[in-house]
């Protein structure tokens, strides 16, 4: 049972088709055999009855004249063979007198003249009982259960008086060869049909099963190998399988979206945590740092001018200043008062990066569609664009190109920086915006961190699309309508 349920459709469909063919063949053959049996029985009965009538009419005179040899010749001629229908040949013909004694028989040795057939026992004894029926001139068909023969008895009637009976015995077994032939023919036809049907059903099964098998295979790989579940191979049709495939595609799409969303959330949460941490540390460092730098300043102004001390102080001051810059970079401050961002700023930036671009032989193209100044802090936006442009120029291939796109759309500033050349590999994406996560040899790895911090603090959105030979950073920052 389990095995049958677990069987692949690839096998199930041909097996079921064969089963259906076999079942049909068996049912049809059985019906035919039954029909044939009925037909033969009716034929035989009709034949035997008419033969019985002819014999009884013909035998009246010889029996009345006690002409045994003539009677024998008559019943012998009635036992002629029919090659086309061997079952129509009577196995035995008995002519009995009114006392159920043999007048003549087709087998004189077994049924000698004058003996009672009942002496042979079995069916022949039963026949005697059958003779004493209600209607003395009616034909009777007797089928004794324990006998291989069945009998048709016709009374020999002369002038309304029964002289005796003509008993025709037919073999029941003679049907068997006909049935065997019939069953053999049916088996042969079934076999031929099966030979024809098996490849057809095999192809049919493959056609029907293939999409299901694909679907099953895709589903089997679903949780782990979402990317590789080959959705393209799934069937596109309007039948149930097509609907199933469509639903599955939708499911996979939603799953993917969810996964991406979860990934993004994870990244932004981590970045937020890092941001809080760095801000905390930066504040803690900034407080004593200010004091230390003030102390060094005081010493310079009022100290005794000891050269060693002065040198040491200057060393300390340089170190502390570097710390201050680093902390300042980590701690992006947006609250300061700033002028508005305008198209002029982008021109400045392009001038700034020109030498860098020239050094790497990279073409920088800008498409700026800003008509007026925007209520956004110019320093911070400049910082974003500068960092992204420098990254792009650095990543672009020799003689490659970098594009900057700046547009306004629905109260949002849209910035896009594209470059060819190196792309961001998938495994780097998650930590791309984290501080100190650079793969380059120069630079402190704070560029994108700063971009991210600024965009977040300005309530903007940031996304990266990167494929081999092509990388785009998209930024959207909302701004208020100028008052």
């Amino acid at each position: 049972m389990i095995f049958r349920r677990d069987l692949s459709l690839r096998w199930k469909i041909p097996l079921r088709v064969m089963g259906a063919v076999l079942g049909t063949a068996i049912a049809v053959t059985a019906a035919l055999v039954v029909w044939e049996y009925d037909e033969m029985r009716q034929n035989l009965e009709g034949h035997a009855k008419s033969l019985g009538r002819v014999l009884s009419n013909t035998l009246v005179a010889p029996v009345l004249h006690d002409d045994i040899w003539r009677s024998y010749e008559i019943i012998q001629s009635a036992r002629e063979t029919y090659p086309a229908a061997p079952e129509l040949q009577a196995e035995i013909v008995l002519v009995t007198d009114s006392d159920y004694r043999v007048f003549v028989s087709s087998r004189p040795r077994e049924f000698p003249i004058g003996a009672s057939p009942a002496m042979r026992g079995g069916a022949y004894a039963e026949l005697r009982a059958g003779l004493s029926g209600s209607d003395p001139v009616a034909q009777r068909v007797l089928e004794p259960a324990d006998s291989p023969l069945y009998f048709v008895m016709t009374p020999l009637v002369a002038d309304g008086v029964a002289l005796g009976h003509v008993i025709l015995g037919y073999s029941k077994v003679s049907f068997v060869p006909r049935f065997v032939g019939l069953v053999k023919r049916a088996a042969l036809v079934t076999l031929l049909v099966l030979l024809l049907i098996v490849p057809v059903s095999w192809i049919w099964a493959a056609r029907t099963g293939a999409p299901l098998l694909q679907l099953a295979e895709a589903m089997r790989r679903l949780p782990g190998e979402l990317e590789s579940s080959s959705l393209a191979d799934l069937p596109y049709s309007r039948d149930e399988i097509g609907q199933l495939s469509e639903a599955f595609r939708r499911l996979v799409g939603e799953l993917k979206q969810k996964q991406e969303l979860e990934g993004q959330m994870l990244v932004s949460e981590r970045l937020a945590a890092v941001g809080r941490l760095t801000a905390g540390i930066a504040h803690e460092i900034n407080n004593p740092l200010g004091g230390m730098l003030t102390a060094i300043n005081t010493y310079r102004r009022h100290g005794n001018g000891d050269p060693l001390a002065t040198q040491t102080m200057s060393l300390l001051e340089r170190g502390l200043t570097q710390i201050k810059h680093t902390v300042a970079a980590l701690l992006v401050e947006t609250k300061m008062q700033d002028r508005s961002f305008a198209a002029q700023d982008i021109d400045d930036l392009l001038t700034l990066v020109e030498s860098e671009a020239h050094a790497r032989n990279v073409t920088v193209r800008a498409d700026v569609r800003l008509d007026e100044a925007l209520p956004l802090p110019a320093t911070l936006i400049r910082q974003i664009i500068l960092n992204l442009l420098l990254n792009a120029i650095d990543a672009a291939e020799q003689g490659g190109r970098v594009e900057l796109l700046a547009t306004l759309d629905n109260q949002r500033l849209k910035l896009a920086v594209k470059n060819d050349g190196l792309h961001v590999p998938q495994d780097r994406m998650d930590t791309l915006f984290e501080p100190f996560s650079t793969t380059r040899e120069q630079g402190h790895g704070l560029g994108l961190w700063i971009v991210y911090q600024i965009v977040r603090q300005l309530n903007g959105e940031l996304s990266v699309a990167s494929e081999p030979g092509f990388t785009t950073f998209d930024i959207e920052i909302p701004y208020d309508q100028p008052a």
Partner: protein
Amino acid sequence: MRIGLTPVFLDDQVGFLGQWRAWLEKKLGRSVVFVQRGSYREIVDLLRSGKIDFAWLCGYPYIRHRREFGLVAVPLWRGQPLYQSYLIVPAGDLRTHSLADLRGKIFAYSDPDSNSGFLYPQFLLTSQGENPATFFSRSFFTWAHRKVVEAVGIGLADGGAVDGYVWETLSEVRPDLTRATRIIDRSSQFGHPPFVARGDIPNGELKRFQSVLLGMADDPEGSELLGRLRLDGFAAGQPTLFDGIAKMAERVSGRMMRK
């Protein structure tokens, strides 16, 4: 010319009869018709009423109508105008050795007007002091010697009386039939069934037919036809040849009278 035939020979060979008829027509220079009937009596009646001219009859009806019929010729079988009656039983029956062993059994006669197939066994029983009418439980006629052989062979009858010439001929033509029977008694020699003529036949016609029959053995085609009949030829024969049959008939009918 109409010639009556009886089953004193194997008269069921239709092809042979056609050839014989054609040969006789050629020799006699006139048309010949063979007349066959179901029993000897019918042929005898036809001959007595003049509806046929000649007949090949058994010796028994001949001697009964000896004064009416003219003797034409007697066949020569194994060189002599004589034959025997055989009593036969089924080949499988090894216990029966004589007619006396068949008491209460079923017996097949060929024809009530046959010497070998009826008169001889009747005579044998009578001479043994038995009543032929009650000796057998049942008896029946097959109306032909060949059919007696068949009836005994298949066991329809427990015994039968048959023309010895027919049995011997059949043993060559259809050995399967005779092999199913066994001979338990051979009678003494009797005159072979003769050709006879109706009483009022013109003498010239009788002589002409007689000479054709007597010359049959010397004619190449005729001797070939005789070979098919397993006969050597025909002899003129004397009515005294049938005295043996006449004596038996007297004895049997005498007994019948006394009964």
